[in-house]
């Protein structure tokens, strides 16, 4: 009997016991996000058809519960006879990857700049906070729209724009958290014991501000998804031949009268993703910081 064998089941059981105490809504949200992450990773492996496989014989077939549907295309087909399920999987993958990338880039940039502003102070602080104010004062969605329209279909620019969306929130929050954590008794006390600033940051400030930053990440993620899907919806973000949830919805909008599901199904997926993320974010926030109860 190895040690791991005797520890393993106990740990798993405890983990499961912890899970069963969660609210049902949170479990549902977790499952849906897990599904979305799975799709983001393995869409190509599970799709029944290639997402751009055109089949003009089978155009606009409805999804399964409706009459005229077949199990060969469970969610039906679009105007060019492309399998909606396959398209949906690939579109969800694109949207998820883009949003994750955008959120992470924005968060890393914002957190780093926030740290620098708080640590260096003086001119650094002024300049970085000036940039933050400027970013917050711009109608960024609209500027992004103009840039994308004029710059054309470039993935790099699109990701850059997504990263610039929301970075200022992280910067402002990080700076505030670091400044207040540094004035906390324990940070001052460690300095008084002879600890170097690096020790104070790494051992004390970072663990204490990580919680609020993670919460901010979960709060920002839904708006990043909405940012991406809205631009694609307007035909400016992800454009054919690639596809994303917003773009599918934008295309489907023209067929509302004959084939409402072309718009409603991708719309539901976007909605459920943002909803799950918001539910998780709320739950995490209360869990990590009970004093923030809102």
């Amino acid at each position, binding site marked *: 009997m190895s040690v791991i064998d005797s520890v393993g089941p106990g740990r798993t059981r405890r983990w499961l016991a912890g899970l069963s105490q969660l609210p049902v809504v949170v479990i549902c949200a977790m499952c849906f996000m897990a599904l979305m992450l799975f799709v983001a990773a393995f869409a190509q492996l599970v799709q029944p058809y290639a997402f751009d496989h055109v089949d003009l014989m089978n155009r606009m077939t409805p999804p399964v519960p409706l009459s005229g549907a077949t199990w060969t295309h469970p969610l039906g087909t679009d105007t060019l006879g492309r399998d909606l399920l396959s398209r949906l999987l690939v579109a969800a993958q694109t949207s998820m990857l883009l949003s994750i990338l955008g959120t992470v880039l924005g968060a890393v940039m914002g957190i780093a700049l926030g740290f620098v502003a708080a640590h260096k102070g003086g001119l650094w602080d002024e300049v970085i906070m000036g940039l933050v104010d400027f970013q917050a004062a711009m109608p960024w969605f609209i500027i992004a729209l103009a840039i994308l329209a004029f710059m054309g279909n470039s993935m790099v620019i699109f990701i850059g724009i997504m990263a610039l969306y929301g970075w200022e929130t992280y910067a402002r929050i990080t700076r505030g958290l670091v400044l207040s954590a540094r004035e906390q008794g324990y940070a001052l006390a*460690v*300095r*008084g*014991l*002879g600890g*170097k*600033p690096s020790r104070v940051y790494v051992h004390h400030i970072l663990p204490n501000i990580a919680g609020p930053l993670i919460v901010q990440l979960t709060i920002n993620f839904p708006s990043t998804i909405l940012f991406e899907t809205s631009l694609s919806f307007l035909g400016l973000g992800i454009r054919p031949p690639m596809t994303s949830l917003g773009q599918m919805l934008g295309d489907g909008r023209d067929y509302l009268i004959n084939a409402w599901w072309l718009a409603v199904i991708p719309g539901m997926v976007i909605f459920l993703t943002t909803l799950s993320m918001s539910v998780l974010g709320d739950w995490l926030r209360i869990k990590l910081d009970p004093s923030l109860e809102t």
Partner: protein
Amino acid sequence: MTALLHAESLRKSYQVGRRSLFRKARRFNAVDGVSLTLERGETLGIVGESGCGKSTLSRLVLGLSPCDEGGVVFDGTPLPGQDTEAWRRLRRRVQLIYQDAAGALDPRQTIRTQIEEPLRIHGLPLERAQKAMADVGLVPAMGSRHPFELSGGQLQRVVIARALTLNPDLIVMDEPVSALDVSIQAQIVNLIQDLQRDRGLAYLFVTHDLSVLRHVSDRVAVMYLGEVVEEAPRDAFFDGALHPYARALLEAVPVPDPARRSRAAPRIGDPPNPAAPPPACRFHPRCPFATDVCRAERPALRDFGGRRAACHRVEELSQ
């Protein structure tokens, strides 16, 4: 032998409000020309009301914040610059303990980790932590707890243990028992005094509570709006202060004895805003004995046979 600590004409000012494009920020002196001396194994009590600069002074003395003017000499050498290697080494000899023990501990780390932290920082043997815990009356089992699981008195013991691990010569105590209940306060006061006796520690004991001060200190200094207005040996001070403010302070303390009731509180009005202290003698607007000279000239701290006071009218009033 030189004194353990000597501070000369310390001055520290802070900015009031935000600096703007069009005008310079107003500054006020939180500590204004304070000098003090502390011998080994001695306790100097510093008393004053809120905003008198006593907490700022305690940080200046330790070198935790730089002073604008004046200097501090610790054990014959001036305090090194902030955050230098020498400054960090000095931390082994001077320590600060303040009122908010819960805030001084990292909420995420166990008690043991935090008591051992100074030893890790300075590369000292970790066994010292156990000794320190035993010295302050903490059972080893406490080590695995987190700060939120401990009571206020226990937390203050943890903070004291953490300071003791480094075997300091001087501990500055900034209101160490003010947040505690009377019965717990007595426990901590006893602990502090036992440690001083056993280890020969010197204390700078900063508080607003005259009754605790009377119990622990050898000498007393009274601060008012950034200045020391009186300094005296303990017994002499409590038998009769020289400065009118120190007298008012002594009179205002409620004596826990219903047989000694005094119905007349010193009528000295509300304290002024510490950020805008009055000119000349800073106490003159509230002083019942103020004369023209008090309104015109700032009194110096003068010697009166082993005690010092900063008042123009000491001689007349002590008659």
